[in-house]
C-alpha cells in the first residue's frame, strides 16, 4: 500500500494553486493520473520521486516512511529506488543505449538483467547507438528499460507516450503492460488520453486544480459500467451538424474521423472538443459524454 497525504502551494499559469492530495494506492495496481495539464499530475510524481518537496504531509510506501515533513524525514531520491520515465526521457547523451542501462545498475547486481531488458523492449540492434540517433519511440523504450534495471517496486511514467504516433503508442502500451505484470510493479502513469486510460489501467485518479475529484476503477470513473456494449470507442467531437431532428457527429478516434448519427437528446448537450464515448450493441450506437 502506498499512502499519500501532502500539500504544496504551486504557482500555475492561472495564479496560485494548492495541490492537496490524500489517497491510497494498492500494491500491484496500474494507476492512471488523469486530468487537464496544470492539474498537478507531474508534481505528484516528482514528490513521490523525491525531486520536489511538499510543504506539509507524509508519504508511506509499504510501511516505510519516505516523507514526514513534521518529523523532518525526507528520503533522498537515491534512497527511494523508484523507476521513473520522464516526459523528455532524460537519456544520458554521452552514453550508448547499453551504457545508459549499465549506468543504472547497482554495484554488485547481476548484469544479466540488462540483456534481458534490451531483448524485452527489442533494442538489441540499437544497443551500441547513442540516444540522439534514435527516434522518439526508441528513446522511450530505452527510458522504460533503464527505469527497470534496478527492479523497482514502483514505476512512474510521466506522459510517456504523448509525443508518439498512434501505432508506436499502441506497441509501447503493450510493453508497459508486459513489464508491469512481469516485474510485479505498482505503476503510476500520467495520461490525458481516455482511450489510453481505458486500455491500460485498472484504477484512475482524476485530478482538477490540484485536488482529486474522482478515484476508482476505469469503469466507475468514465461512468459507463451499466452499458453492456459490443464495442466501445472514445474520441473527440470535432464537428456536429444538425439535420432536421438528428445530428451528424464527426468524431476523431485515434487518427480516424468517424461520422455517427445521434438523436436530438444525445446531440443537444455536446460541444465541439468534448470527449465522448461511442458504444454499440449490434447496430444501435449509444453516445455518451464523458468529460
Amino acid at each position, binding site marked *: 500500500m502506498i499512502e499519500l497525504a501532502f500539500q504544496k502551494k504551486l504557482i500555475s499559469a492561472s495564479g496560485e494553486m494548492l495541490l492537496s492530495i490524500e489517497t491510497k494506492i494498492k500494491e500491484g495496481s496500474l494507476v492512471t493520473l488523469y486530468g487537464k495539464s496544470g492539474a498537478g499530475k507531474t508534481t505528484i510524481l516528482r514528490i513521490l520521486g523525491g525531486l520536489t518537496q511538499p510543504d506539509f504531509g507524509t508519504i508511506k510506501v509499504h510501511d516505510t516512511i519516505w516523507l514526514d515533513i513534521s518529523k523532518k524525514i525526507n528520503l533522498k531520491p537515491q534512497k527511494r*529506488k523508484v523507476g521513473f520515465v520522464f516526459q523528455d526521457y*532524460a537519456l544520458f547523451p554521452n552514453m550508448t543505449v547499453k551504457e545508459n542501462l549499465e*549506468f543504472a545498475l547497482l554495484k554488485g547486481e547481476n548484469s544479466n538483467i540488462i540483456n534481458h531488458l534490451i531483448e524485452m523492449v527489442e533494442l538489441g540492434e540499437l544497443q551500441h547507438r547513442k540516444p540522439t540517433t534514435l527516434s522518439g519511440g526508441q528513446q522511450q523504450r530505452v527510458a522504460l528499460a533503464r527505469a527497470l534495471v534496478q527492479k523497482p517496486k514502483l514505476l512512474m511514467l510521466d506522459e510517456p507516450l504523448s509525443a508518439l504516433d498512434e501505432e508506436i503508442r499502441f506497441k509501447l502500451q503493450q510493453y508497459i503492460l508486459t513489464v508491469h505484470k512481469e516485474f510485479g510493479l505498482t505503476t503510476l502513469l500520467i495520461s490525458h488520453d481516455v482511450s489510453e486510460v481505458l486500455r491500460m489501467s485498472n484504477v484512475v485518479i482524476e485530478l482538477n486544480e490540484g485536488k482529486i475529484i474522482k478515484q476508482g476503477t476505469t469503469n466507475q470513473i468514465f461512468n459507463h459500467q451499466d452499458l453492456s456494449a459490443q464495442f466501445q470507442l472514445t474520441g473527440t467531437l470535432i464537428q456536429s451538424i444538425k439535420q432536421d431532428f438528428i445530428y451528424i457527429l464527426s468524431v476523431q478516434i485515434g487518427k480516424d474521423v468517424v461520422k455517427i448519427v445521434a438523436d436530438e437528446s444525445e446531440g443537444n448537450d455536446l460541444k465541439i472538443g468534448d470527449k465522448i464515448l461511442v458504444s454499440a450493441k449490434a447496430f444501435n450506437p449509444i453516445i455518451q459524454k464523458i468529460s
Partner: protein
Amino acid sequence: MIDWAPLILTFKLALITTFLLFIISIPLAYWMAFTKSKFKPVIETLVSMPLVLPPTVIGFYLLIAFSPANAFGNWLNEWLGLRLVFSFEGLLLASIFYSLPFMVHPIQSGFANLPRSLKEMSYIIGKSRTATITKVLLPNIKPSLLTGIVLAFAHTIGEFGVVLMIGGNIPGKTKVASIAIYDEVEALNYGAANTYSLILFALTFCILLLVYLFNNGYLKQFYR
C-alpha cells in the same frame, strides 16, 4: 637570436594557471549554476570583476596584500615561507584571479544549460552528486570545458598589467613574453619585439581557431 626564456615562462605560467583554474572552477561553476543562496550575486560579481577592472588595480592590491611589509604578506613569508611579490608563485596566484571568469563562465553556463532532468534522473537511479557531476554532467558539457580551458590559457598568455605590477620584470623568473615585448620596444629593439609578437599572434590564433573548429563540429569527421 631572441631570448626564449620569456616565451617559455609565459607558457609555463599559462599551463599551470589553466590546470589549477580548471580544478577550482568546476566546483565553483557548479555552485554558481545551481545554488539558491542569496550570496550568489555577490560571488558572481567578484568572479566577474577581472573582466572590467584594469589589470593594474588587481595587481596593485595584490602587491599591497602580499608585500612582506604588511601583516598578511609578512605572515605568509614567516609561516609558509611564501614570497608572493616578484616571484613566480605570486604571478601564478595573480593569474588565477585574473583569468578566473574566463574559466568559470563557460563552465557555469554549460551546467545551467543542461536539461535539469539529466541530473534528476541520475539521482533517481541512485547516483551521488559527485558521480552525477563526473559521469553525467561534465561529459555532456565538453565544448564548454574546452572553451573555458582555452580562454583561460589564451587570456593568461595575454596578461600584462597584472604581471608587471606583482611580478616585476625579473628575467627568467617573472619576465613573461608580453613584458619582454614592451622591454624590447623601450630599447628600440623592434626586430626582437616583432619576433615575440609574431610568435604570440600565431600561437593564440591557432589555439582559438582550433576551439572554434571543434565547437562548431568541423573536426568531427576526423575523430569519429
